[in-house]
């Protein structure tokens, strides 16, 4: 009975949504509201106003920088939530990971991963640093880096991955993104502008564009490093299982 009701509900929702689709503005129409309003300033002035050739980066970090600050806080919240549910690793305890089986990943996987990893790392770094002029940016690069680390973990084991990126490093870097945002924001505030204005106090107007570029890079780096670390911490928290040694610590 409940099933039938739910199915009817979903069916009705689908029909309504399709009806709605037919009364929405035509897709790809240059005159539709989405392509007509607000957007022209981004397209025409972003390069000059934000100093980024990639307009998306300009929108993410400048026009809607506050959203991005919220975004990095969301992912941090995700980490804090996972840790609140599953707990943080503690010193002096022994943890096991689900891939502890004696069958190791094959030589092909390991050597392929070993071959690919440097390229992935390089690519992610490039994505972070080059986000202003080509597709990419802090978070994109951080995600690529995290995916690379996951590949490492799949090939060489989570235990080893946990050693390669030790907890201490992760604890320090996890909060990097919101903190850099906050610092850059407050710097803009002290510089006489608004929060997130990418300004520093006592910098002459001539240096402003260069300063903006450097501060943007700083934020991108913070997002990239913080994002990658958070993903790794989340994976480790999901994967690990306590096996003993707890009482002594």
């Amino acid at each position, binding site marked *: 009975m409940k099933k039938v009701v739910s199915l009817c509900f979903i069916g009705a929702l689908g029909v*309504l949504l399709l009806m*709605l689709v037919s*009364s*929405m*503005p035509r897709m790809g129409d240059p005159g*539709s*509201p*989405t*392509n*007509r*309003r*607000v*957007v022209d*300033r*981004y397209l025409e002035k972003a390069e000059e106003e934000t100093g980024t050739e990639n307009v998306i980066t300009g929108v993410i970090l*400048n*026009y*809607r*920088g*506050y*959203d991005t*600050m*919220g*975004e990095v*806080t*969301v992912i*941090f*919240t*995700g*980490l*804090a*939530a*996972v*840790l*609140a*549910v599953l*707990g*943080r690793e*503690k*010193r002096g305890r022994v943890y096991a990971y689900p891939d502890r089986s004696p069958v190791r990943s094959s030589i092909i996987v390991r050597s392929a991963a070993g071959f690919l990893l440097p390229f992935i790392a390089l690519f992610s770094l490039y994505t972070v640093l080059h986000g202003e002029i080509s597709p990419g940016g802090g978070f994109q690069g951080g995600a690529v880096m995290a995916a690379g680390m996951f590949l490492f973990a799949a090939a060489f084991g989570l235990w080893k991955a946990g050693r390669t990126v030790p907890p201490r490093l992760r*604890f*320090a870097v*996890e*909060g990097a993104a*919101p*903190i850099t945002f*906050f610092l850059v*924001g407050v710097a*803009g*505030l002290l510089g006489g*502008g*608004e*929060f*997130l*204005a*990418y300004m520093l106090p006592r910098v002459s107007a001539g240096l402003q564009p260069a300063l903006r570029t450097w501060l943007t890079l700083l934020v991108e780096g913070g997002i990239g490093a913080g994002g990658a670390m958070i993903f790794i911490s989340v994976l480790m928290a999901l994967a690990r299982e306590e096996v003993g040694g707890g009482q002594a610590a």
Partner: protein
Amino acid sequence: MGAYRHFPILIITVPLVTAVLMPALSHRRERLCMPLAAAALSASTVLTFLLYRVIRPAADCFLSYRLGGWEPPWGIEIKVDFAGLFMLSVICSVSLLCLVYSRKYISKEVEPGKAFAYYSLFLLLSAAMLGFTATGDVFNMFVFMEILALSSYALVAVTGRRDAVRAAFKYLLMGAPSSIMVLLAIALLYSSTGSLNMAHLKELLAEGAYSRVVFASLVFMIMGFGVKAALFPLHGWLPDAHSIAPSPISAMLSGLVVEVAVFALLRLFFTVYGAASGAVSGTSEALGVTAAAGVLFGGVMAVLQKDFKMMIAYSTVSHIGYIALGISIMNEQALTGALYHLLDHGLAKGCFFLCAGAFIYERDYRRIEQLKGASRRMPLTCAAFAVAALSVIGIPPTSGFISKWYLIWGSVAGGKYLYAAVYLIGSILAATYCLRVIYYMFFLPPQPGTWEGGGEAPVLMLVPAWVLSLGTLLMGALSFVIIGRVQEAAGLLLR
């Protein structure tokens, strides 16, 4: 305006960043977490109350903060008007009190290695509510809603008890699709207008283009926020999550989180969709009917409960119905009542859960019949509960009376006598479930073997509970100072 200009952003970001510092303290210095969190929230509270010096309920008197200096339709705007400031101050004060209360309670319920995560999430929750209330951009609202949602799911589960984890998962299973519905609503709104800024949207919606899409987006918004606010048919997650969470979190969820979602509905109705009058009048009728059903259903369920916190949780379903019903009536008196009820509900429900937490902390008593004779050993806790109960019922010197007075006045003035009757029946139900507990506490002898030895709850838990319950008295007694301004703010929203 001077330095006041920057207050809104600092109110939001200071707790946000303090929350991020917590994991770095997780090794050895976990004791520092609570004082640090308290300092951050106190700073926000002080800044919020200072804003009353510059923001008044007048059409042109609000703070608009342009992030990064970009003008509104392109950049994000934080906009604090009087109604927003009113909500911000409720959020700040109640969460600060709950944080103080957590100090003792959490050391008992949460294992030490997780306390840092608790305080971090607590701050994120408060900061997200502040950001959510203050923002003037619909997508930014979604981002803060997600911070709010993720932190509240985890806070429900933080004790790691079986039922807590399941309640949190149930909450997530209803909360996450509702977030997606809000996102869908934002996408539809964007498709028909091309903007995300609330004030700009209001102008654009006045043109009346793509009215079907706009109507659909409002419906999805109401469904999405309705789940978050636990409006009647969508309240399924609330009783479990609110009754099983650690008590200070119950107080936060019940006193603030659901309220913030209702406040978002209020914002959307009046600040965003206000101009698209067809959409609003169509949906407000439906909202009114479901809210009225929620008032009665929540009240009846609360009367039937045996578990103390479960009773308070159902009472929340009922009281959220009060506020939503007030919004749906759409006149100045009812809206004044709804705004004032936001304050009253935050204080009274917060106090209820803090008192329930005191019983759990001291005795591990959760059932109502275990509270028989409680006043012999814990008179102060019981008295705080009784004072807050007066406000929940709506007995004169309390703020609950003032808000109900305005709500009923509004429904009579709007010609909706049935809704006035619903409010009265809701009050009678509230009287039934509150007075039963008070009767048990003060006038019945304890069950054998329950209230022997032991004493009052610790001071750090009593003080927040008492501040909240005295707050309801004070806000009722001093309402003549505030209510005029709230009424002006309500009038502004309607314009």
